[in-house]
């Protein structure tokens, strides 16, 4: 009886030892944590992009690390960051301590990513941000390189470049309005959700729009989750704006576009409306989001380079929808992390950082290269401009999202024209033409 009892104790001890050593079981896999608001489209984009990358790499036998091949194992972490930033930091902590991931991709809200970044850096894990645009994320790398060097921006380019791209698109649309409607000076209403990433963009917009020969007639800051913007729209109409510069990443983009379209507010919408980037926008606005223009990363009919179409086709076939920019977890894994591992033959984060920050890589949305600050310190922030990443300007035209920018765009007088394959002309909403046509 005593021997029988001892036998069970030994068996139990063996199981416990195996359980404690569980992470070692996965030693032949590279663990990548995918963190994002998984109940929302942004998080689904993070996950789908990563799944596609992992499937592609594993199908070809895995990642070559020195002499052996290692498969990719994804770990999903729901950051719930739209609702609670604390949930996001807890999810990142879990990835580090329980799942013991080697890399992390994802994150969306700047407020949450700033907090998550600290945790990943404490554990010296490479974290490629695929969603947040606040410059501070990368300024930290320059200010305290030893601590923050493991962070890289994967997408989008920072909010300074986002706003610069928006200004270029506004100038393009402004010129069309002037020419088509005979306007002397285009009046602009700035409507920006109340969120941290927007604040530097508003300052820039206030200063730069007048330099573009346009007039700012007012700034409205609705809540990011406002469901009714009738009051704002009435005030904008009273201001006499011809153009509304939108800066929305949250749900407010839907009621704003829907109500503006239904009320036929005589002002075109240009800027950022993340909800308008999605396939579901037409249904969500009941078709009232017609003629809304927004910055975007991908469009079904636009090819930035030879990698765009295969990526889009596979993604649409696999998930039944056009990827949003958070699906750039695909590019982060397949074009950044994996080549760096194969080049160095190691998973050592310090060695990988050196390789990653020096590389320039072609990805489906352009070319990824990393900036340095004025003092030559690495920022790990994305380069912007022709030849690198420019993003797209897309517009909803009768139920279809089409690419309208860059279309014969010249970054400077002497620069060559940039037009991506699949671009179509911008259309002014008929009620705007009706209101202003002389």
């Amino acid at each position: 009886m005593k021997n029988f009892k001892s036998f069970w104790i030994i068996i139990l001890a063996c199981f416990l030892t195996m359980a404690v050593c569980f992470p070692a079981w996965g030693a032949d896999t590279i663990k990548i944590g995918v963190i994002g608001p998984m109940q929302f489209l942004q998080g689904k984009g993070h996950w789908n992009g990563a799944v596609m990358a992992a499937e592609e790499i594993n199908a070809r036998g895995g990642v070559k690390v020195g002499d052996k091949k290692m498969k990719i194992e994804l770990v999903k972490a729901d950051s719930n960051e739209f609702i609670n930033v604390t949930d996001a930091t807890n999810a990142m902590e879990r990835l580090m301590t329980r799942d013991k991931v080697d890399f992390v991709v994802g994150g969306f809200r700047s407020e949450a990513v700033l907090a998550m970044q600290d945790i990943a850096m404490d554990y010296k894990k490479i974290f490629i941000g695929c969603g947040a645009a606040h410059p501070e994320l990368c300024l930290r790398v320059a200010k305290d390189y030893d601590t923050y060097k493991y962070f890289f921006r994967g997408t989008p380019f920072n909010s300074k470049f986002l706003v610069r791209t928006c200004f270029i698109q506004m100038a393009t649309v402004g010129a069309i309005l002037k020419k088509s409607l005979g306007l002397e000076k285009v009046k602009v209403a700035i409507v920006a959700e109340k969120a941290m990433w927007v604040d530097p963009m508003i300052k820039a917009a206030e200063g730069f729009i007048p330099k573009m020969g346009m007039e700012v007639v007012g700034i409205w800051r609705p809540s990011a989750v406002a469901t009714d913007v009738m009051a704002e729209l009435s005030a904008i109409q009273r201001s006499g704006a011809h153009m509304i510069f939108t800066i929305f990443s949250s749900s407010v983009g839907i009621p704003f576009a829907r109500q503006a379209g239904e009320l036929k507010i005589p002002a075109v919408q240009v800027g950022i409306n993340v909800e308008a980037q999605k396939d579901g926008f037409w249904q969500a606005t009941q078709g009232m989001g017609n003629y809304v223009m927004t910055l975007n990363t991908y469009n079904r009919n636009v090819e930035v380079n030879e990698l765009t179409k295969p990526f889009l086709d596979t993604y649409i076939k696999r998930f039944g929808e056009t990827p949003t920019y958070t699906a750039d977890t695909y590019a982060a894994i397949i074009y950044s992390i994996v080549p760096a591992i194969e080049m160095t033959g190691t998973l050592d984060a310090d060695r990988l950082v050196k390789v990653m920050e020096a590389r320039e890589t072609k990805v489906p949305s352009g070319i990824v290269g990393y900036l340095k600050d004025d003092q030559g310190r690495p920022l790990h922030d994305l380069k912007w401009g022709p030849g690198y990443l420019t993003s797209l300007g897309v517009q909803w035209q009768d139920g279809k999202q089409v690419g309208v920018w860059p279309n014969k765009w010249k970054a400077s007088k002497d620069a060559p024209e940039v037009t991506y394959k699949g671009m179509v002309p911008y259309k002014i909403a008929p009620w705007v033409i009706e209101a202003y046509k002389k």
Partner: protein
Amino acid sequence: MLLDIIITSLINGSTYALLAIGFSLIFGVARIVNIAHTAFYMVAAFCIFFVTHHLGYHPIVGMLIGVAVVTLLGMVTYQIFIAPIREHEAAVLIGTIALAMALQEVMLLIFSGDYRSVPPLMQGFFTIFGVKVFYQQLITFIAALVVLGALRLLLMQTKLGLAIRSTAQDREVANLMGMNESRVALYTVGISIALAGFTGAVVVPLTIVEPFMWMHPLIMMMAVVVLGGLGSIKGSFFAAYILGFAEAAVVFLIPMGAFLKGSVALSIMILVLLIRPEGLFGIAFEEER
């Protein structure tokens, strides 16, 4: 600009009034602080989305089904979860918070967090004194007045109304007079949640449908109820329009601070309560009931 503010506040106020009156009713009669009230409004919105978008029926059918489903759901959940703990006010409060969270999570699981919408009953808008107003908003405003009128008729002209009012005034005495107080409370819960469902039904074409859509109206509804005086239907009605006015005024007068509209409305509530702690139409002491 004043006209803009007035018209916008009438429309916003109607939504708050519909929600707050249902909430006041159940508090007045059964002393239940039903935090899940706006969660039923959210469930009704999803029902309408499901019936119109997935089953392809007209929004009116969706609205009828939505109101019926949430009323039934409300009465069932009341009988199962709330009635057994009704005498413990703190437990009821926590129980209804849990119920609201559970409904939110269920909707999140079924429909995900994506933003959705349903078509309006009547598309388009008209202009009044230069202010554009959706037909759907007009429907909401009229519906609020009609429902509130019907509710008043029910309370003042029917036996059930008499029972509800008697129970609201004094539960023990109503019980002694032969009224089945538990049944009256159940019917009141049904009416109250039907009002929440109806609000969801008329408002949903103007807003976006998502599992967290119950939170902002909850805060505003509570503010309206407290400002009007806990349990006072008349108070809720007036307070709804006062806070609706405050919200609209903020957007028009401080465009850069439009996101503060909720906070300003709540500050007004606090200010009024400092001067009149029982609210505009409330009763100073419970013994006065």
